[in-house]
């Protein structure tokens, strides 16, 4: 390992600009002559638009133009990128600006473009709209029996019904069961709240008849494809998408959003750049939300505690319209994960996906996998409590043995590698379980209820083999592209389709190059987020950037070394087969003849003495890497909580995490990803929760109403690590961005219920706020008997 190579905790090269205020986020960009857009949004959750009068707004000071849905002739709707198993799926139109009907509070109704933002906002107040309000349906569980229907072509508000696994075998397992643990749960709706609100600037070049969109995206090429091909009919060579520094995404900046199309389309109409930046209130209303499941789960066990079968019925809320990957989340990113780390032989899962008068639901950190893990890990804990088997012991009895890989689950996935028992052992060690008795006594001596919760989780990420993606219903490939260019004087630029929005790719990917080509890390530049500079890309989500994007870089590095060997062989008058390459130096085996990679690069670009008949000049290699399987990070998270029974307040008193994310390139960055993931999952468990009232008004519509995790809610996490390499990608990497979130929600909630079990509380829905915990305590059967 070199100081800057694979495995080194290299400080991040991107940090200086962020620390000095020189980062360049979308809203930091200002284009000459730009105008400002304000989006007028529906105040109703469901209504017909009888009439819109924009005359006064159009005549107001500074207003350049006002557009409504009626003006968008020829503009297509927002497309959906996934239909489970290719369909059938009810796929109603998703207009960029609502035409006749609004379907959630925040739905777009008009756009005002003015010289200043205040003028646009003021003029929007002058737009008069005659709405005919309609009955709405908000709650997930109510959708299929609601009296109202959102879309004419979606009877009972059903988007699709989907299932996975062997129903007959699962029913048989339950028929033979010694014990069945059951659970009804709600996986709460969350609002992603990346700290940077979404923003977009559209620009039209009259001379070239071409467009540029600056946008807060995790995947600019995907936006170019969706918006260009389906919404605005702009071919790729006339459409440039730039995602500059992106201030967090967590899934909410994957989808192609209507505002991106609005500013791009409007820029052509007004012949000036059009800038839009969401206020936080708009983000709450109009960013895609996450989770929102209502689930019944059952786990069948034999008399020894071996899992025999798992049966799941879930209703998943997709919101008012289909977002880009909405239908993927509660299907192939959820049902396929229900085996967890366990050798459960029979699993069957049915999902009903529904429309409601709420914001569209799409990926949120973990996306389907936290929902699966939460269900499985809660059921395991309930089974443990009911059978009297210790929860650690029950898990241990059912873990997939480490010699069973590759392991085919009953729900489609083939796990490639792992050591789950080893993770559990290491988890118990890092959590200092030998001291737990003392900590319990200490907490109880202070009048606290003490609980410990486990989460032994699996993740499937590194999305994805394209052929598999196609079979399951993706309308795109899921490879990644990388162009690694060695310049004539030996410095290197990497053009990657992965799109960092906080993950530190500029450092991690430079480490790959520094390691692979022997180039000083300061001579490596990583370029991302610009469709005119990067060959192609599918973007950053699903913990895929290193496993897929990094693998593409490694393949390009291999190609460069191979070509470099041929050039070096020519220079050194040797056979390419005899060439060795290490630490940036080509050498002839068994001799002292060497040539540096910088010299080879110069030769490649100044090919005076060069085998031009066999080899092209230049040293620049592009790879499209398509993985052959998902990757399967796993881990063991253990949480301890103390609860004040008088107030219901929950405090996390210890949190430890041992994760297997495969090969680690930069342990500092990996630890940071795990920290953030844990906080996000703990936020759902204890604090966060989206609330719509019965009329579909977003009650939790600001940071005053939606509780974000704060520093004082959390503590220093204890991390451990265990590495089993992914056997099928060149790095052996698995992925680390979502692991913490997938694991931590279940770990925290298992700890909370463990603490409350002596009071007769066996389950509590999230968030476990002081109020919810207090109520659970006071409505528990044992407590009521006491009272």
């Amino acid at each position, binding site marked *: 390992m070199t100081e800057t190579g694979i495995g080194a905790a290299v*400080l*991040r090269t*991107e*940090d*200086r*600009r*962020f*620390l*000095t*205020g*020189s*980062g*360049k*986020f979308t*809203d*930091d960009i*200002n284009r000459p002559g730009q105008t400002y857009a304000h989006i007028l949004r529906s105040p109703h959750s469901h209504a017909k638009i009888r009439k819109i009068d924009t005359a006064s707004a159009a005549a107001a000071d500074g207003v350049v133009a006002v557009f409504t849905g009626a003006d968008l002739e020829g503009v297509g709707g927002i497309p959906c990128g996934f239909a489970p198993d290719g369909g059938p799926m009810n796929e109603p139109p998703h207009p960029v600006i609502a035409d006749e009907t609004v379907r959630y509070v925040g739905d777009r109704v008009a756009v005002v473009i003015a010289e200043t933002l*205040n003028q646009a906002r003021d003029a929007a107040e002058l737009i008069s709209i005659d709405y005919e309000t309609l009955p709405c349906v908000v709650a997930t569980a109510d959708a299929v029996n609601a009296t109202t229907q959102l879309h004419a072509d979606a009877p009972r508000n059903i988007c699709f019904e989907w299932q996975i696994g062997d129903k007959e075998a699962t029913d048989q397992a339950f028929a033979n069961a010694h014990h069945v643990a059951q659970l009804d749960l709600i996986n709460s709706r969350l609002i992603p*709240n*990346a*700290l*940077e*609100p979404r923003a977009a600037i559209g620009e039209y070049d009259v001379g070239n008849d071409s467009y540029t969109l600056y946008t807060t995206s995790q995947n600019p090429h995907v936006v170019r494809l969706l918006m260009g091909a389906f919404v605005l009919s702009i071919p790729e060579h006339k459409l440039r998408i730039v995602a500059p*520094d*992106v*201030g*967090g995404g*967590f899934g909410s900046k994957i989808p192609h959003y209507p505002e991106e199309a609005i500013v791009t389309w409007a820029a052509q109409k007004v012949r000036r750049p059009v800038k839009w*930046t969401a*206020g*936080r*209130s708009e983000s709450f209303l109009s960013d895609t939300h996450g989770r929102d499941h209502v689930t019944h789960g059952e786990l069948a066990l034999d008399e020894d505690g071996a899992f025999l079968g798992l049966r799941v019925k879930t209703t998943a809320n997709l919101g008012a319209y289909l977002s880009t990957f909405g239908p993927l989340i509660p299907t192939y990113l959820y049902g396929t994960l229900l085996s967890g780390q366990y050798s459960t032989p029979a699993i069957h899962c049915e999902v009903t996906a529904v429309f409601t008068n709420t914001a569209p639901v799409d990926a949120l950190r973990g996306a389907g996998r936290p929902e699966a893990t939460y269900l499985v890990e809660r059921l395991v804990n309930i089974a443990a409590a009911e059978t009297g088997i210790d929860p650690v012991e029950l898990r241990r009895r059912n873990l997939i043995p480490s010699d069973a890989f590759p392991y085919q689950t009953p729900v489609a996935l083939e796990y490639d590698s792992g050591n789950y028992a080893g993770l559990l052992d290491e988890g118990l060690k890092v959590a200092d379980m030998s001291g737990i008795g003392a900590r319990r006594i200490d907490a109880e001596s202070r009048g606290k209820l003490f609980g410990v919760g486990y989460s032994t989780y699996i993740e499937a990420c590194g999305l994805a083999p394209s052929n598999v993606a196609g079979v399951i219903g993706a309308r795109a490939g899921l490879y990644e592209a990388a162009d690694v260019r060695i310049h004539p004087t030996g410095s290197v630029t990497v053009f990657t389709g992965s799109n960092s*929005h*906080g*993950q*530190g790719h500029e450092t991690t990917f430079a480490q790959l190059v520094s390691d692979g080509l022997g180039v000083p890390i300061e001579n490596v530049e990583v370029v991302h987020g610009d469709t005119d500079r990067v060959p192609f890309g599918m973007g950053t989500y699903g913990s895929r950037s290193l496993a897929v994007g990094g693998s593409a870089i490694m393949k390009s590095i291999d190609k460069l070394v191979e070509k470099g060997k041929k050039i070096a062989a020519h220079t050194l008058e040797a056979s390419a087969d005899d060439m060795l390459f290490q630490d940036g130096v080509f050498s002839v085996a068994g001799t002292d003849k060497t040539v540096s990679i910088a010299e080879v690069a110069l030769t490649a670009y100044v090919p005076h003495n060069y085998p031009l008949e066999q080899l092209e000049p230049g040293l620049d290699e592009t790879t499209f890497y398509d993985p052959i399987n998902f990757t399967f990070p796993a881990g063991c998270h253990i949480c301890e909580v103390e609860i004040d029974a008088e107030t219901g307040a929950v405090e996390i008193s210890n949190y430890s995490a041992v994760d297997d994310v495969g090969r680690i390139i930069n342990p*500092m*960055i990996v*630890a*940071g990803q795990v*920290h*953030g*993931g*844990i*906080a*996000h999952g703990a936020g759902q468990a204890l604090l966060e929760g989206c609330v719509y009232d019965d009329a579909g008004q977003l009650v939790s519509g*600001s*940071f*005053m109403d939606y509780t*974000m*995790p*704060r*520093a*004082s809610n*959390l503590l*220093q*996490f204890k991390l451990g690590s265990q590495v089993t390499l992914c056997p099928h990608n060149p790095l052996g990497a698995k992925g680390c961005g979502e692991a*913490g979130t997938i694991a931590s929600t279940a770990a925290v909630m298992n700890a909370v219920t463990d603490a409350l079990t002596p009071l007769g509380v066996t389950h509590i829905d999230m968030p476990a706020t002081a109020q919810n915990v207090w109520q659970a305590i006071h409505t528990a059967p044992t407590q009521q008997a006491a009272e």
Partner: protein
Amino acid sequence: MPSVSMSVNGKSVSGEVEARTLLVEFLREHLRLTGTHVGCDTSQCGACVVHVDGDSVKSCTMLALQAEGSDVKTIEGVANGDELHPMQEAFRENHGLQCGFCTPGMVMSALELVKRNPDPSEREVREWLEGNFCRCTGYHNIVKSILAGAVAMRS
């Protein structure tokens, strides 16, 4: 439109602004000092923290006109030329930032904490960050950074 004058990062600046213009809008839109960020519209997130006459202020919660004659410091004015301030350096060395959006506000807020309390405990740092949100780091390394920055500033 009323005019406003103040000192920003040691330089005298002035401009004509609508009376409703917020300090953060003046900094970002008029002066193009885009290091100060806007992450919310209800004064919770703290991405917009700057110093006004030595005190940390959420610049989304103050009118530009209220800063008339004041001495304002933003994240762009914290480093000494190319040399990072010890608090900035502590964030870099402790991986106290990921996406970087909350970072300027975190640094400005941390500087105020250390001014008031040169040797804060971990609990005091966590309580102090009540008004600064981060979605990326779980605060783990931000807290470490501020504690390390405080040590560096004392020495």
